């Protein structure tokens, strides 16, 4: 197993890091508005089309490159719909007639996000009350993260044959809600339940990579704060109970880093490996709670203010934890299969 980045991957990382530094705006509480300028810059870099086929306007790269981009966005504390675009793009790529919109997505011309959550329902890959009859849909999707600015949304629905996937252009959202009854929907032929699972695998990896970056910055800021902030006449770094906890944060971070990188390699080899994504979400979910909560605590009061970045990082980690299933749900999925194998084999 090789964890090192190639030279090209390092160049990509540096380019995104530069872009993220340049494009960074001060975070505000609450939902992040879509930033078209930043989005165009990501498109120019090729970031939006990384894992998609060159024939559709993508870069023909792999989830490893997606992970690199998302990590840098997370490090910079930039909240975007990058993971959402990866899910939408993956669904379009799975269909034989999603190519045109996918090309537009890769180029940054169309802002496309998935609509996969149902109100008052825990996360599920399977649509429960969203139904399809031909191209007519019923049901409600809410919330749709970043939906307000979307040129199109991609949603799944249940029909007689199972799960189908649809595109809705120029969706008229009410807040974060899309009432599907009466809207014009176009079926994406060839994209079925397996495509949804695969798209969500990629989206989950993307979010977890972003979380990795956010945790990295949260720890860096915490360490810096401990070095400079004084209490009782001495720097906080003199309080061993704080520095030992920073060491635990570092440990969580490094274990999460290994897992994110491994999951990216794994999806590159097998985009349908759901068990690895379950484990990834558990490891990152636990690390995100640990690091996010401790980063605030070790900062003290300033950690919960909107003027200081660390609370926003924790807010983002919290949102990521609750996207596409939280730690509990992924644990439950793993628990249901835990008797099927002897041990998790990472190198086999």
């Amino acid at each position: 197993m090789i964890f090192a980045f190639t030279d090209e991957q390092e160049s990509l990382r540096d380019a995104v890091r530069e872009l993220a530094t340049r494009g960074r705006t001060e975070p505000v509480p609450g939902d992040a508005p879509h930033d078209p300028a930043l989005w165009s810059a990501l498109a120019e870099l090729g970031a939006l089309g990384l894992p998609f086929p060159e024939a559709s306007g993508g870069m023909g790269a792999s989830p490893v490159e997606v992970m690199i981009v998302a990590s840098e966005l997370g490090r910079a504390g930039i909240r975007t719909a990058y993971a959402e675009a990866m899910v939408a793009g993956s669904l379009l790529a799975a269909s034989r007639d999603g190519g045109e919109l996918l090309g537009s997505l890769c180029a940054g011309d169309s802002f496309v996000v998935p609509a996969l959550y149902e109100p008052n329902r825990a996360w599920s890959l399977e649509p429960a009350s969203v139904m399809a009859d031909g191209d007519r849909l019923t049901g409600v999707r809410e919330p749709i993260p970043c939906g307000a600015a979307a040129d199109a949304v991609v949603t799944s629905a249940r029909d007689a044959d199972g799960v189908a996937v649809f595109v809705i252009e120029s969706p008229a959202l009410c807040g974060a809600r899309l009432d599907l009854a009466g809207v014009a929907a176009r079926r994406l032929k060839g994209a079925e339940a397996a495509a949804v699972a695969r798209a969500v695998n990629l989206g989950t990896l993307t979010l977890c990579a972003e979380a990795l970056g956010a945790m990295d910055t949260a720890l860096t800021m915490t360490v810096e704060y401990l070095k400079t902030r004084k209490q009782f006449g001495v720097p906080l770094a003199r309080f061993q109970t704080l520095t030992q906890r920073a060491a635990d944060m570092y440990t969580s971070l490094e274990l999460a880093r290994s897992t994110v990188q491994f999951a990216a390699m794994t999806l590159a080899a097998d985009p349908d490996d759901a068990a690895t994504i379950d484990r990834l979400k558990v490891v990152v979910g636990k690390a995100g709670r640990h690091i996010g909560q401790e980063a605030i605590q070790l900062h003290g009061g300033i950690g919960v203010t909107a003027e200081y970045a660390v609370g926003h990082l924790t807010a983002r980690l919290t949102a990521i934890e609750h996207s596409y299933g939280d730690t509990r749900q992924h644990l439950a999925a793993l628990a249901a299969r835990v008797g099927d194998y002897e041990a998790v084999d990472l190198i086999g």
Partner: protein
Amino acid sequence: MERELSADDAQFRAEMREFFTTKIPQDIRDKVAVGAELTKEDFAQAHRIQHEHGLAVPGWPVEWGGKEWSDLQRYIWLDEMAAAHVPAPLAFNANMIGPVIAAFGSQEMKERFLAPTASLDIWWCQGFSEPEAGSDLASLRTTAVRDGDEFLVNGQKTWTTLGQYADWIFALVRTDPAAAKPQQGISMLLIDMTSPGITVRPIQLIDGGYEVNEVFFDNVRVPADQLVGEENRGWDYAKFLLGNERVGVAPVGWIKRKLADAKARAATVASGSGTLLDDPLMAARIAELECDLMALELTVLRVAANSHGGKPDPASSILKLRGSQVQQDVLELMVDIAGPMSVVWSGEDDGAVPEWARHTAPVYLNYRKASIYGGSNEVQRGVIASAILGLKG
């Protein structure tokens, strides 16, 4: 040892339940239930209704409106208040400056301040923390220099909760910079927030709300008769103030209400073929939190029962420490119940995602403060280690 509630206390409990569920406006209680932000008027109205019924300041001396309740009765009052989603009387008035004035203020000061403090005709805020004096309160720098019949106050306070609504502030100020120890040479002043030279700057918190403030003092003139008690004894009064509350130091009633709400919410979120409340891992986590809360609540009852006349007891540190932990655990549970519904904070109030769910993430993030303010959990552990266990380091 006796588990049963006496007939009198059972009667008291029924009365409190009746009062809170019928006398406090439903719209205020509904806001509390979904975690929405309360307005100044909401707080004031709830406080005043309690005051009209003689319930706003039960812990004060009887002559100033107190009730001489037992600790158990105080506990029941708080418990039923929280159970009905009723906001508590303003703590700065009822639990902080009121008892201090009653204990240490001159007769003139008592007569001037206690009645409007109880009735909320004066809205108080607290001026203790400073940018360079958070957990290390004794290093505060705001100065008060005697100038004839006045003090001249200069400096800055921060984390002043609801300061934007306040009429008056009780502030710790340094009156003797040459004192041998930093805790000495500190006094407590009562300051009119409309005094020239005071500027309030709201601080936005991570949830988007404005509940704390910076308060700047630029040559603010404070009449000397607004000095509480004796000069340079402010540290003692602050310790009294902070140690005064034991029954309420862990917000057990609030947590219990939230946990019950969480169960009710979980039963409304579909999961698989049932609801989240049927999910074995979710149900076990809720059951575990109920165990944690029970142990905490019993400890409040047990420690309060050992109370000895308002003297600060280091045991209250375990209530503060554990109270904030369980409180935060329950709010984390609530976000987890909301799940993907917590991901978008804004939304239409008539949306299919209910309001409570949209508030879960900001409320969870906001309450990370609970283990920081009022003496951080690290400070509480330090108190336990040194004052109880004798580990002086």
